[in-house]
């Protein structure tokens, strides 16, 4: 097989795979702007009516606000916990360190349904069931794992002698943390923040199990789907997709390797 044909086949294969994955999303976006309520070809015409419709629906707006509140709380909480876990892993050796790291890394590996049910039982017992707080706590637990991984990656690029050099020059442990470690990790912290927000905003299962009457946007979407299927859902989907896509891309851009020696 010649090289030209080979690379052509490889590119086509890639295109097909990505096309397959992307097509449903593309359909959602395209039909969110469709004048007609039933998706079909040919297209009825460009229209923003579905966007207008959802922006006038109080339940959609409320659930969106809930998602933002939970998302921001998650972003803040997960970035802090993720940073602390990453720093501890970077700086200290102690018995049980492997178990500790495992504990931090595990939440995303637990099936969401299992997490949801377990949290439901636990939170009901401590009286937090049905509150947004509960959703935020669960999301922080999951997102911290991602945050820790991102920040730990950045810390591993820090020359080992830099922090001790700061102490040697008069910085206390806290000063070293504030003036050397945090500024160095700035981009990783931002990336962790954005990614945690995206993870939380997109999360459906636990929010559904635990939120009760306080719906987040994905939960509202499910309820909409169970009622009448409407292009409003396409509009919501497009907006959510745009948001999480930008957040993830920003996080990736922040974590890019710069070519200049650092």
């Amino acid at each position: 097989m010649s090289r030209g044909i080979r690379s052509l086949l490889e590119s086509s294969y890639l295109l097909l795979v990505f096309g397959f994955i992307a097509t449903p999303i593309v359909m959602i976006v395209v039909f969110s702007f469709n004048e007609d309520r039933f998706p079909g070809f040919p297209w009825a015409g460009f229209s923003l009516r579905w966007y207008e419709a959802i922006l006038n629906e109080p339940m959609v707006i409320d659930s969106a606000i809930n998602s933002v509140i939970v998302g921001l709380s998650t972003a803040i909480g997960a970035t802090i916990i993720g940073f602390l876990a990453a720093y501890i892993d970077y700086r200290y050796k102690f018995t049980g360190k492997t178990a500790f790291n495992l504990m931090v890394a595990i939440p995303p590996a637990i099936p969401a349904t299992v997490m949801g049910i377990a949290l439901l039982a636990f939170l009901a017992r401590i009286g937090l069931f049905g509150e947004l707080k509960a959703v935020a706590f669960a999301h922080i637990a999951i997102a911290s794992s991602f945050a820790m991984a991102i920040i730990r990656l950045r810390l591993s690029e820090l020359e080992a002698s830099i922090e001790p050099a700061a102490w040697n020059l008069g910085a206390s442990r806290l000063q070293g943390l504030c003036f050397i470690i945090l500024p160095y990790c700035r981009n990783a912290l931002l990336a962790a923040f954005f990614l945690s927000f995206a993870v939380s905003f997109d999360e459906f299962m636990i929010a559904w199990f635990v939120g009760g009457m306080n719906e987040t946007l994905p939960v509202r979407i499910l309820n909409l789907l169970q009622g009448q299927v409407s292009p409003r859902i396409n509009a919501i989907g497009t907006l959510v997709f745009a948001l999480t896509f930008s957040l993830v891309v920003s996080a990736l851009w922040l974590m890019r390797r710069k070519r200049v020696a650092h």
Partner: protein
Amino acid sequence: MSTSLLSLNDICMEYPGFKAVSNLSIDIKAGEFISLMGPSGCGKSTTLRMIAGLDSPTSGSMLLEGTSQLDVPIEDRGMPMVWQNFALFPFLNVQKNVEFPLRMKGVASDIRAKKASEWIERLGLSEFAERSIAQLSGGQRQRVALARALVTEPRVLLLDEPLSALDAHLRIKMQTELTRLHKELGITFIYVTHSQSEAFAMADRVVIMNKGEIQQVGTPKEVYRAPENAFVAEFIGMNNLLPGTLVESNGDTVDVVTDLGLFKAKPAMGLKNGDSAHMVIAADCIRLDNQGKQKVRGRISGEEFVGSVITLLVELENGQEFKVQKQQHEVEALNLKYGADLTLSWDAQSAFLLAA
């Protein structure tokens, strides 16, 4: 008479199954330039780290003018270090790097900017003050590291192989600068290196270490001319060692039996008949003109050309290799070829003994 500024007593650093530093005791005087030197793994960097507080000794005491240092945290020891790989803060420019120690001390921003600028200028870095670290060359980074360490005007400066990351000609240049700085500032420099030439060029005293223990302490000249044991004799300068046994003392010479025969050497204190000893002959004391009374035969096995001085490597009958250092023009005159047989000789007074 210089007073003792920092005194280490019986300092040990033990890891499970391995002693990095054993019973190290030394008095470092105020204002001296002292160098800790030895091969890799001899414990010199570990000792420096313990002085800085980066590692804690497993036993022993460390006193700064009589006050124990061991409970003093790293940030309060006041002994800034110049690191081998510079350890400059990558996201700060030169000015901010140099200001950092003053900032940690709480010095007001206008005062610290001024002080930092003074030191930047003193080290010839004024035009780079606003540059980021990534844009600097190795030599420039080294000077930033120096400025940053000296900006708080400490009493003791620690240097951990600061020149090994630089290329050869820059190293020589920096040696001169460091010596000059030391004279101007009058503070104590504690310098770790594995390079004999660096230590000898700059230090007032050298501390030779091997396997965690001090082998000898003295001025470069003392250590060079009078090594106290076989390790120092082999590590410093260029010496040839022949193991043997002392058999007889004849007043101003002694007889030593080796596997190459009987030789006469200078008497040594503390060695008596029957003791094992190393007979040490400096490479530049060996003659090629057959005039010395002590002789061995050998074959030329190699040559090291370092400019005006040539080191000849001569394989002796017992398989050992002797080094002979001669001026290039002398060797040239003899027209020696690789593999040629020749006789090495020296005077009994050029050979001294060390306990084995």
